C-alpha cells in the first residue's frame, strides 16, 4: 500500500482521469457503431469478436503497459531515446519487406492472431524522444541553423518513409514537431511561411488562377505603396516584397498544379479538391496516368458527404444513444476508425460534440501546463511533442469529418478503433506522466 503511494507519487491524476474518460468514450462510440441490439451487450463486450470487445482488450493491455511505464525509471527514456529512434526507423524500413498492405498502405507489421502493428504510429513516440534528446543535449544550440536542420531531419525522416509506404496522412502528423521547435526557439517565420503556403494552396483551389495572380499583384502594389518611404531608404524591402510576390505567383501558377498533377496521386488530389467543393480531373494526373491506363474516374466525396450528413443529422441534442440512423445503416465508411467522430456527433448532437471537444481542450491545456512546469528541456520538449501530436491528430481528424479538411486518414486519439493507435497514444501520455512525476530530477 505504502509502496503504491510511492509509485503514484507525483503522477498527474487529472491527465489519467481525462485519459480514462476518453478511452471510455471511444469504447462507447465503437459500441454504437457495431452493436445492433442483438444479444446481451455485456457478453458481446467480452466475447472478443466485435471491435468494441477487441478495443476493450486493447484498453486492458494499455492499462498494463501504462502501469509498467509508471513503474519504470524516467532515466530509461533519456538513455534509450536515440536507440529507440534507430529501432523505430529500422522497424519502418523493415515494413517494406515484412509489411502487410491494409487499405492501400504498406505500413503494417503482422503480429499474428489477427493483430497488426503500424510502425509509423509507434515511431511517433521514438521521434518525440529523439527530438527531446537532441534538443536537450548540452552542445545543442537551437539558435544555430545546423541544429535546426538536424532537428528537422530527425522529425521528417519517418514522415518520408511513411509517404513511401502510401501512408501520407500519418506523415502529416510529423509536421506537428514544428510546433515543438517553435516553442524551443525556431523562428516564427517558419510557421508563418508554412501557414501562408497552405493558405496559398487553398486559395489557388478556390479562386481562378488569373484572378488570384491579379489579387496577389494588387496586394504587392499596396504594400509597396504603404512602405514607399521606407523603400526609398532601404531598397532591400522592395526586393523582398517583389520576391515574395514572385514566389507566390510562381507557386499558385506552377507549383500547386505541379504538386497535384505530378507529386500527389489522383485520389489524394481528388480528396483535396473535393474538400473545397471542386472536381479534380484525374486525366491530368501524371502519376495515375503512368500507373494505369484506366479511364479517369470521376472523384466523389462520398465519405465526407456521408460523414457530414451523419454529424448534421445529430442536430442540437442528437438522435440518442444507439439511435443514430446513419450509424445503424452503416452509411459512413470507415466509421469505427477514421470517422468515429460521426457516431458521437449523430448520437449526441452539438451538445455532445462540444462537451467532447472541451475534454480534449482541457487535456491539451493540462499537458501544456505540465510541459511548462518541467525543469528539464528533455521533459519539456517531449511534453510539447505529445501536445502537438495529439493536437494534430484531433484537429485533422475532426476537420476531416466535418468537411473542413481533405481526409488524410488520421485516427482520433483514444477514440478510434485500433490497437496501434491506442497503444501509441497511451505510451505517449504515460511516458510523459512518468517524466512529469520525476520533474524534480534534472534530466539531460
Amino acid at each position, binding site marked *: 500500500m505504502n509502496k503504491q503511494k510511492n509509485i503514484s507519487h507525483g503522477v498527474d491524476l487529472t491527465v489519467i482521469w481525462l485519459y480514462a474518460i476518453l478511452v471510455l468514450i471511444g469504447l462507447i462510440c465503437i459500441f454504437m457503431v457495431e452493436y445492433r441490439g442483438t444479444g446481451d451487450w455485456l457478453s458481446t463486450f467480452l466475447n472478443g469478436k466485435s471491435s468494441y470487445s477487441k478495443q476493450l482488450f486493447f484498453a486492458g493491455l494499455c492499462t498494463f503497459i501504462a502501469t509498467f511505464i509508471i513503474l519504470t525509471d524516467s532515466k530509461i527514456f533519456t538513455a534509450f531515446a536515440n536507440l529507440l529512434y534507430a529501432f523505430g526507423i529500422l522497424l519502418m524500413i523493415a515494413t517494406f519487406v515484412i509489411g502487410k498492405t491494409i487499405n492501400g498502405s504498406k505500413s503494417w507489421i503482422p503480429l499474428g492472431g489477427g493483430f497488426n502493428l503500424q510502425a509509423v504510429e509507434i515511431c511517433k513516440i521514438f521521434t518525440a524522444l529523439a527530438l527531446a534528446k537532441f534538443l536537450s543535449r548540452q552542445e545543442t544550440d537551437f539558435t544555430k541553423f545546423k541544429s535546426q536542420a538536424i532537428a528537422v531531419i530527425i522529425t521528417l525522416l519517418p514522415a518520408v518513409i511513411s509517404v513511401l509506404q502510401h501512408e501520407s496522412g500519418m506523415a502529416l502528423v510529423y509536421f506537428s514537431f514544428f510546433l515543438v521547435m517553435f516553442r524551443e526557439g525556431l523562428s516564427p517565420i517558419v510557421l508563418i511561411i508554412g501557414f501562408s503556403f497552405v493558405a496559398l494552396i487553398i486559395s489557388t483551389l478556390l479562386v481562378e488562377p488569373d484572378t488570384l495572380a491579379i489579387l496577389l499583384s494588387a496586394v504587392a502594389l499596396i504594400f509597396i505603396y504603404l512602405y514607399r518611404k521606407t523603400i526609398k531608404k532601404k531598397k532591400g524591402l522592395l526586393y523582398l516584397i517583389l520576391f515574395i510576390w514572385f514566389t507566390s505567383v510562381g507557386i499558385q501558377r506552377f507549383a500547386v498544379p505541379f504538386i497535384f498533377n505530378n507529386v500527389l496521386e489522383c485520389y489524394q488530389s481528388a480528396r483535396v479538391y473535393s474538400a473545397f467543393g471542386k472536381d479534380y480531373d484525374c486525366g491530368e494526373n501524371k502519376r495515375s496516368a503512368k500507373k494505369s491506363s484506366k479511364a479517369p474516374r470521376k472523384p466523389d466525396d462520398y465519405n465526407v458527404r456521408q460523414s457530414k450528413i451523419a454529424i448534421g443529422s445529430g442536430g442540437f441534442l442528437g438522435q440518442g444513444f444507439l439511435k443514430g440512423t446513419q450509424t445503424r445503416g452503416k452509411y459512413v465508411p470507415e466509421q469505427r476508425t477514421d470517422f468515429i467522430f460521426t457516431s458521437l456527433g449523430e448520437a449526441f448532437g*452539438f451538445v455532445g460534440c462540444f462537451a467532447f471537444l472541451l475534454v480534449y481542450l482541457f487535456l491539451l491545456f493540462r499537458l501544456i501546463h505540465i510541459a511548462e512546469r518541467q525543469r528539464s528541456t528533455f521533459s519539456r520538449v517531449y511534453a510539447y511533442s505529445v501536445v502537438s501530436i495529439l493536437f494534430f491528430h484531433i484537429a485533422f481528424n475532426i476537420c476531416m469529418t466535418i468537411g473542413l479538411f481533405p481526409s488524410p486518414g488520421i485516427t482520433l486519439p483514444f477514440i478510434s478503433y485500433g490497437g496501434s493507435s491506442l497503444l501509441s497514444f497511451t505510451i505517449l501520455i504515460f511516458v510523459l506522466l512518468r517524466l512529469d512525476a520525476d520533474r524534480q530530477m534534472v534530466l539531460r
Partner: protein
Amino acid sequence: MSVFNQSRSRVIQIIIGAVFIVITFQLINLQIFSSKYKLAAENNAIYRKIVYPDRGIIFDRKKRALLENTISFDLIVTPSESKGTDTFALCSILNIDTAEYKKRMRDAIFKNTRVKPSVFEPLLNAELFAKLTENMYKFPGFVLSERSVRTYPYNTAAQLLGYIAEVDTAFLRKNHQFGYEMGDYAGMSGLEKTYESILMGERGIQRFIRDNKSRIQGPYENGLFDTIPVAGRNLFTSIDVEVQQLAELLLQNKIGSAVAINPRTGGIIAMVSSPTYNPNVLTGNARRKNWGRMVMDTAKPMYNRAIKGQYPPGSTFKPLGALVALDEGLITPSYGVGCGGGYGACGGVYVRCEHHNPGHAANLRLALANSCNAYFSDVFRKALDNKKYGNTNQGYLKWKEYMNAFGLGRRLEVDLPSEDKANIPDTSIYNKFFGGAKRWNSCSVLTLGIGQDKMTATPLQMANIMCIIANKGFYFPPHFVDSIEHEQVADSSFMNKYRSKHTVTNISDSDYQAVHDGMHDVTIYGTAAHIKIPGIEYCAKTGTAQNPHGKNHSLFVAFAPKNNPRIAVAVVVENGGYGSVAAGPIAGLIIEKYLNDTISTVGKATTERVSNMNLIPEAIKNWYTRKDAERAERLAKLALEEASEKNNDAIEINHKSNTEPLLEPGSKPVEGKDTSTKIKLNTALLLGNDKRKKIRDLKP
C-alpha cells in the same frame, strides 16, 4: 535558458484554441443551422413504404357490389440499387428483351430519379408472381409490392364506373396537394374519378431503417411515425345492376344509349352507352393489351354517349313544346289544328307529317298521340311570335329560357366527369347564321318545334325531361351515388345539390296532366301502341330524328307507371329508324324489368329479338373487317418471318417471291375499299354532333 521562450507557450495555446473555435463553428453550422443534412440523413436511412388502402367499393341499389378489390403485385425497382441484378433471368421471366429492360430502367430513372422506387412491371399475374418470388434473391433493387386491383363481378357498367390507372405527370401537377406519387393509381374516368377523394382512402406509410445496401434493419422509432392506411369509403348508388345488364344486352350491336332515372330521387337506375366494353378488360395486366385497341376503336366504346352524345330530340321534344305553349296560355288542351299531311304556313319551309287523316290533331292529346308535326310546328311558332315579347328574338329568348329550365342546353351536373351540355342555340347563333337579327323569324327555325334544327340533347337530358314531366314540374339532378359510407360534412355539401328539389318554372299541374294524358294515349293507340308492359300503364313519346348521314335515329322517352311514376327512361338508337321500332321496345323492357323485377314470356321473346338486331352502320362494320384483315395480315407476316428466319440461309434468294404472293390476298381488298370506307367512316363519326343544319327530308 528554457524560460527564454516561455511566451511562446501562450502562442501555442492560442493556436489550439483558435482551431477548436473553428471546429465549433463548423459544428454549429452543420448541426444547428443546416437542415439539409437532417433531410439527407432521412433520405439515406429511412425507407418509406407506402401501404395502399383498399379502395372503396361501389354498390348498386340492392347493395350488390358492382366492383371488388383483389390483390395484385407490382414489381418495383430502385435503379440505383439494381446493380448485380441477373438481368437475363429477369428478362426471361418477364418475357422481355434486354433492350426493353434498359428502356424501362431509363424511363424509371427519368420519371422517379435513380434512387426512388418506380414500377417496373405493374400488376403481375399469378404465374409471374410465383416465378418472381422464387427468384427475387437474384434481383437486388427489385421488390414486389402489394396493390389492390379492381374486378367487376357483373361485367357491367364499364363507362359509369370508370377505370383506375397509374397517375401521370400532368395528373400529379394538377393534384399535388393530395400527395399522390408516381406509381400511384387514381380514378381516371367515371365514378372512380368523380369520387376519387372518397374511394382512395388514406395511404399508410411505414418507415423502416435501411442500411447502406438498402437492407431493411427494422422499423424506424418502433413505428412511432407510421400511419395506418384508412380504407376508402364505399359508395351506394341507385344503379340496378340487373336493369343495367338488361339494357346493355338490349343495346348490343347497336350504337346508342339508354338512361333510366328514378324521378322521385333523381337516382340513375341504368345508363348504357353502346358499344360498351367489359370493365374487366381494363384492369390488371389486361389493361396494357386492350387499352390501345379500345382507344383506336372507331365505334368509341369508351365514349359515354348517354352524357356526351348529342342527338336532336326529334318528336320526343313535343311534350315540352306543348307545355311551353300551355304555360304561356297560347293554347288550351282542346286546341287543335287541321293537318292534311304537313305544315305549310311558312311557305318556303314545309314540314311534312306522318299522318294525313283529318282530325288526328284535333286536340293536344290527339296531336301528341299521333305525333303531329304540323300541330307542334304551329305551337312553336305561337311561342316565338308571342305578342307579349315584342319580336321573334325576344320570343325565342323566352323559349330558350324554358328549355334551359327543363335542363336542355346546360349541364345537369351528373356525378360523372365530362358531361356535355348539348345545344339550345342562342339568338346570336341564328343572327350570325341568317345574317342579322331581323333576317330570321319563327319560320326560319320552324323545325326546332319538332326537336330538329340546331337543337340537340343528350340522352341524360331527355330522361331528365321525362322526370320533370313525370313529377309535374320538379326534378332532382340526376346522379348515381345516393349515399356515401360515413358521410362527412364535405361530402354532404357535394351531395346536397343532388338532394335538393329543382322546380321548373311554375307550369300548372293541369297543363302537365294534359301532357300526361297525351303521352298515355301514345301508348294506347298512338305511335307506341304496340309496346305493352304487362300490368303497367305508362306514358311515352316516340321520336325519329332525321339523320343527314344515314338511317334515322330511333328515340323513345317514357315514364311509368302513369300514376306515381317511379322510372323515367330515354333511349336513343342510332340508325334505328322509327322510334317505336328499335328504341321503344328497349325502353319498354327496361321499365318492365325495373317495375316488375322480371320479364314476361313475351318480353323475353322481345329481348331476344331486340338484342339480336344489328344496327351498326356499314361504315363501322367495314372498319372492323378491315382491321381484322390487317391483323390477320400482320400475323401472317410474322409467321412468315419466323419461318424464314429458321432457314433463312437456304431460301434467302427465294424469300421475296415466297412471301409476296401470300401477302397479296390479304392486302388487296383493303386497298380497294380504302377510299369509300374512309368517307363512310367520317360520316359515321359525325353522328350525334350538332352539324345538321340542313334537314333535306323536311323540305318539299
